[in-house]
């Protein structure tokens, strides 16, 4: 009869491994397709402002020609064809989990406002996407702050300087500055989406392009 005490250390280890392995057959680790929304993790991320980028940050990235992220327009094809932020790709909201977006891609999502992108963000985070962000307030904010910056009334020197830079950025994207909008005024006409902006990229002030803290996770 084989007595356990007669086994060498290595053989004992082998037996333990086999036993643990056999028991593991019954394990339920629920990998893959379930969307488990971890409230604590998500809300912690939001509180740390890790969930979004601002229109100014995005504008800076585009001007810099950064290639380390994907800009995703989650509206439908018609809206996308009418106007989209340069360098964006179109993945309509319902198709966001279909596989076009890699789990480890760095993604910036935007819609018309902030809500749909935030919903997509939550679902993707629940799927284990770690580098997904929304454009804060979406296209609405892009138009208000980047494309059509508002001329400040009686600006200070600093505000004037900032406005002038904003005008440069606006022109780069085919927009233009405007006076403060009166209620009921006509919305500004959107530029026709060009393949590449025709104006030379403006020089950006230092630190213009720092986005949320990104965690690089390769090996």
């Amino acid at each position: 009869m084989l007595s356990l005490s007669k086994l060498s250390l290595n053989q004992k280890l082998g037996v333990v491994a086999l036993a643990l392995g056999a028991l593991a057959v019954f394990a339920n680790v629920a990998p893959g397709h379930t969307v488990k929304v971890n409230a604590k993790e998500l809300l912690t991320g939001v509180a740390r402002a890790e969930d979004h980028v601002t229109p100014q940050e995005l504008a800076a990235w585009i001007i810099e020609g950064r290639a380390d992220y994907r800009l995703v327009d989650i509206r439908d094809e018609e809206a996308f064809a009418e106007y989209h932020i340069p360098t964006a790709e179109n993945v309509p909201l319902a198709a966001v989990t279909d596989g076009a977006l890699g789990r480890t891609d760095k993604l910036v999502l935007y819609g018309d406002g902030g809500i749909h992108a935030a919903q997509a963000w939550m679902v993707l985070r629940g799927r284990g996407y770690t580098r997904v962000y929304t454009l804060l307030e979406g296209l609405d904010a892009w138009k208000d702050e980047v494309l059509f910056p508002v001329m400040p009334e009686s600006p200070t020197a600093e505000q004037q300087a900032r406005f002038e830079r904003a005008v440069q950025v606006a022109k780069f994207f085919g927009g233009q500055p405007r006076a403060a909008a009166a209620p009921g005024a006509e919305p500004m006409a959107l530029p026709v989406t060009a393949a590449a902006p025709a104006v030379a990229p403006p020089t950006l002030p230092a630190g213009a392009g720092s986005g949320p803290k990104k965690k690089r996770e390769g090996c």
Partner: protein
Amino acid sequence: MASVTHDVVDEAAAGRTRAAQPYMNPYLAGIGLGLVLLAAFVLVGRGLGASGAFNSTIAWLVSLVAPGYAKSNEFLSAYLEEGTHPLKAWLVFEVVGAFVGALLSGLLAGRVGLGVEKGPRVSVGTRLALAFVGGGLMAVGAAFARGCTSGQALTGGALLNLGSWAFMMCVFGGAYAVAAFFRRQWR
């Protein structure tokens, strides 16, 4: 059941203060390594690695010399994040720790000393040249594979990652395929 190979540690015994101890049972060392890997999963949600630290370092060095180029190079720019120093990366700190841990284990076992690992039939110069070339080849392989034996094989292996297992088998395959050609370097 003893396959403890008392390694005859090679030339240049200078610098060693006592006789080198035999290596630990590979299964026990493996369990230790596995537990370290598990700790990484549990604490930080990622595994081990090494080649990524080299990527960060090279990206940093290039950004010192040619910052514009570094940012526009698709491979390097991924390691250059705005607002953070490229060396403030998880893998860089981990690799520095590995250096310290290895030194510690070596000191405890009397295995620290200046030397060159090689077989008797090849010169030091040849060995060093091959080490350099081998390192370069490895770097290319690791870049394509998105990791090396620590990151892909160990980490991905434990997580049953498809690409990692394919990678692992190819590493063994590639090595066994050419081992005969380099026998002279080692035996």
